[in-house]
């Protein structure tokens, strides 16, 4: 147990030294760190609870995705049957499916063939799973039921989440914050973490809007009074103005002239005459052509700019707008105009996002936590080191060296992994010091015992190590299992705790098995002790 071949000793020391060296970049200044080659830019990242910032968990409204998908299926069925000139009645969404009744039973087979074309194979060409997007049932008597398969809905939600992540990314980046992180979590969730953000109110406002912009005509032929009584014309709906304008009701055509998807740019600015904040926008070619056409045909009539089912403004078309650009004025504040421009540039979300968890830590608290965590760690370390020295003398010193190397190695590995250090993570490090010390205590106590049983110093030390290391392995594996479970089920701060604890156990076992043994072996060879000074 006490014999180390030369190459083995070198390997142990080299491993420990290299891992410890990995912690060095943490001490560099920001400039030096940036000048390092990319592969060397590895350091411990401070968690949001330490450096301050906002953690926001969003959920994609999958019910809305499902509803929208059903609505578009309904439109597809209508178009498909019209194209085939098959008369039908009772086309509607019923629960989770679309139903339609073919008027003439003779058309039934033809209608079924036509509608089956709507069902598409899922998963693309290469990964075709044989699943299709629709279940079509012939319920008899001309009634046809079309149901979206679960796979189709899952696929659609997946797409919606992916699109949302891109759009959220664009919106958050517009805020000009440092290194925001946007990740998918679970099936339908998005985690946004913005370090250093103190007040997430504006971020939340930006994320909370779907930003579906449409340009539509105001229905001037229908009666607004009737519509408010619930008798709106079939191709129009009642929408309300912004709260600032007193939620004025408008009767708006359902048909969309041009939508926000056709925008190529949107910028905040000021109206030249009224110097009111506005958002000016540009359409792409097809959008510009359509907008020109509609405005030409409707000079003198009002149209509405609708954002998320709210009428921002409803100006009268004074002259055809041919240039493909225009401006939105809706008595905005400068900030509102700015945010609207950001939202329009970033694009509309496929479905609304809901904030289901928010954790924001101000920079003051983070600094306090770091300072206190550091102080507590130093005090704890000093207490433990002194206690070990007082109890075991020179062997206590060996233990202290091992523990110091241990902590340095933990930070080395954390840096290598670019891991996040949270406040519970610091607690994890402190507890690891406890466990690391325990491994030394186990060894030394065993040596004391073996000495009492009358062994010679060298055989006592040898036997002490052999017996204690088996115990150390057993006890550390059990603690490691607890840390592993914490890592897999834990979120956020708890995960940070599990990471440091788990890494700490690995380094503890390493130092106990190699470094402590190596130091003691050297000491024995140098001093050839007559008795063991433990």
């Amino acid at each position, binding site marked *: 147990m006490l014999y180390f071949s030369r190459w083995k000793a070198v390997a142990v020391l080299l491993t420990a030294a290299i891992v410890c060296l990995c912690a060095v970049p943490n001490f560099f200044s920001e400039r030096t760190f940036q000048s390092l080659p990319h592969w060397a830019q590895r350091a411990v990242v401070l968690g949001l*609870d330490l450096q301050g910032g906002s953690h926001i968990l969003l*959920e994609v409204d999958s019910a809305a995705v499902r509803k929208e998908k059903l609505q578009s299926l309904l439109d597809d069925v209508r178009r498909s049957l019209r194209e085939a000139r098959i008369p039908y009645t009772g086309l509607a969404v019923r629960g989770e499916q679309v139903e339609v009744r073919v008027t003439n039973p003779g058309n039934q087979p033809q209608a079924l063939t036509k509608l089956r074309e709507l069902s598409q194979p899922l998963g693309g060409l290469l990964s075709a799973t044989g699943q299709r997007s629709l279940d079509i049932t012939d319920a008899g008597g001309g009634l046809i039921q079309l149901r979206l398969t679960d796979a189709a809905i899952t696929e659609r939600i997946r797409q919606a989440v992916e699109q949302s992540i891109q759009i959220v990314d664009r919106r958050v980046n517009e805020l000009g914050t440092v290194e925001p992180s946007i990740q998918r979590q679970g099936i339908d969730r998005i985690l946004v973490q913005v370090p250093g953000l103190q*007040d997430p109110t504006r971020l939340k406002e930006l994320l909370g809007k779907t930003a579906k912009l449409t340009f539509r005509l105001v229905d001037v032929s229908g009666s607004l009074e009737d519509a408010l009584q619930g008798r709106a014309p079939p191709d129009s709906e009642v929408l309300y103005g912004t709260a600032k304008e007193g939620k004025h009701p408008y009767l708006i055509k359902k048909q969309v002239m041009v939508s926000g998807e056709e925008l190529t740019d949107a910028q905040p600015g000021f109206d030249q005459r009224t110097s009111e904040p506005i958002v000016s926008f540009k359409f792409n070619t097809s959008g510009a052509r359509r907008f020109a056409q509609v405005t030409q045909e409707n000079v003198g009539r009002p149209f509405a700019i609708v954002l998320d089912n709210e009428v921002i403004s409803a100006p009268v078309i004074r002259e055809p707008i041919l240039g493909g650009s225009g401006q939105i004025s809706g008595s905005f504040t400068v900030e509102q105009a700015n945010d609207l421009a950001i939202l329009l540039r970033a694009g509309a979300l496929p479905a609304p996002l*809901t*904030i*289901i*968890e*928010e*954790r*924001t*830590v101000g920079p*003051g*608290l983070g600094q*306090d936590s770091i300072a*206190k965590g550091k*102080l*507590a760690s*130093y*005090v*704890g370390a*000093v*207490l*433990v080191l002194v*206690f070990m*020295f*007082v109890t075991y*003398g020179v062997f206590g010193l060996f233990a202290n060296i091992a523990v110091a190397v241990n902590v340095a190695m933990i930070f080395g590995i954390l840096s290598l992994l670019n891991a996040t250090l949270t406040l*519970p993570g610091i*607690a994890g490090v*402190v*507890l690891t*010091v406890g466990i690391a*010390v*325990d491994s030394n*205590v*186990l060894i030394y*106590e065993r040596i*004391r015992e073996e000495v009492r049983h009358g062994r010679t110093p060298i055989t006592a030390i040898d036997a002490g190590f052999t*017996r204690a290391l*088996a*115990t150390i392995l*057993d*006890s550390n594996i*059990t*603690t490691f*299992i*607890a*840390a592993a*479970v*914490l890592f897999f*089920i*834990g*979120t*956020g*701060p*708890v995960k940070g*705790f*599990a990471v440091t*604890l788990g890494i700490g156990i690995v380094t503890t076992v390493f130092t106990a098995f190699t470094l402590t043994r190596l130091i003691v072996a050297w000491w024995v060879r140098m001093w050839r002790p007559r008795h063991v*000074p433990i």
Partner: protein
Amino acid sequence: MLYLIVAVLLAVAAVVCALVVLGVIPHLRLVPDDTKFDFMRFRRISFPISATLSIIAILLYFYHGLNFGIDFVGGTLMEVQEKAGAADLAKMRSTLNGLGLGDVQLQQFGSPDNVLIRIAQQPGGDEAQQAAVRKVRGALGDEVDYRRVEVVGPRVSTELLAYGTIGLMLAIVSILVYLWFRFEWQFALGAMIANVHDLVLTIGFMSVTQVDFDLTSIAALLTILGYSLNDTVVIYDRIREMLRRYKRMSMPELLNISVNSTLSRSIITHVTVTLALLALLLFGGQAIHSFTATMMFGVVLVGTYTSVFIAAPILIYLGVGTSRLATGEPEAEAKTSKARA
């Protein structure tokens, strides 16, 4: 003040170290060599005591309850710092109670200018929680610094509670499976009883003290579990070794020797853990206060007691070593095994 304490501490440490180096004071021996405490006799006292305490803890859990934090019941937690100095809790309370947000709790947190605001979960789903935060921000305005704002919606909190519970169960089961493979099943069962006992008592402690039970509490419980197991495994390791060596020794005697010979290690390790936790408790700040307090109770008070007075003696009842006596091996074999050891 804080740094003065630290400086004094360092000075004392330096002096003590110097004295040890000079050989003025001998190495510290917290436990004398060759103790012969009859720990097993205490089982007639410790088992009833533990059983009673466990029942009390379970009753406390059901009738007094835990002070669940927002992680598990949802709601909003805000830590604000009054910019103008000490916070006027009464004034702030009346302002916030006027917002119609239901149950709003205020509590001084750490220094006098720091206030912790807890708002119960608002009816109306996730959006309603956000609206509550906007109202509070509107009411308190710029007079305070928002040091921390945590909002946990109803669904997330349900999930967190479920994951936390599943995590604890999973940890216990996986550790048991490991012990079952490494030892015999009786040891695994003994360790489980000992550790569930620890967790139950710690939950009782949390119920009595009404510390916030949140995600970090789960971390604390798991660490207590890990430490407690660590201890139990060290003693079990020794018991197994003794079982192999002394085939004819009576179980209580064998267990007593095992616990006594690991006693010094148990005490020294717990002193070091206590020192580390003490530092966290005194200097770590409010944020991890409940975490360390719980750990202190679970690891230092309960964990040590359990491994000595519960985990070891329970092996007698679980029938460890009886098969070995019952088969009545020939003396010769016992001798050779002794010689081998």
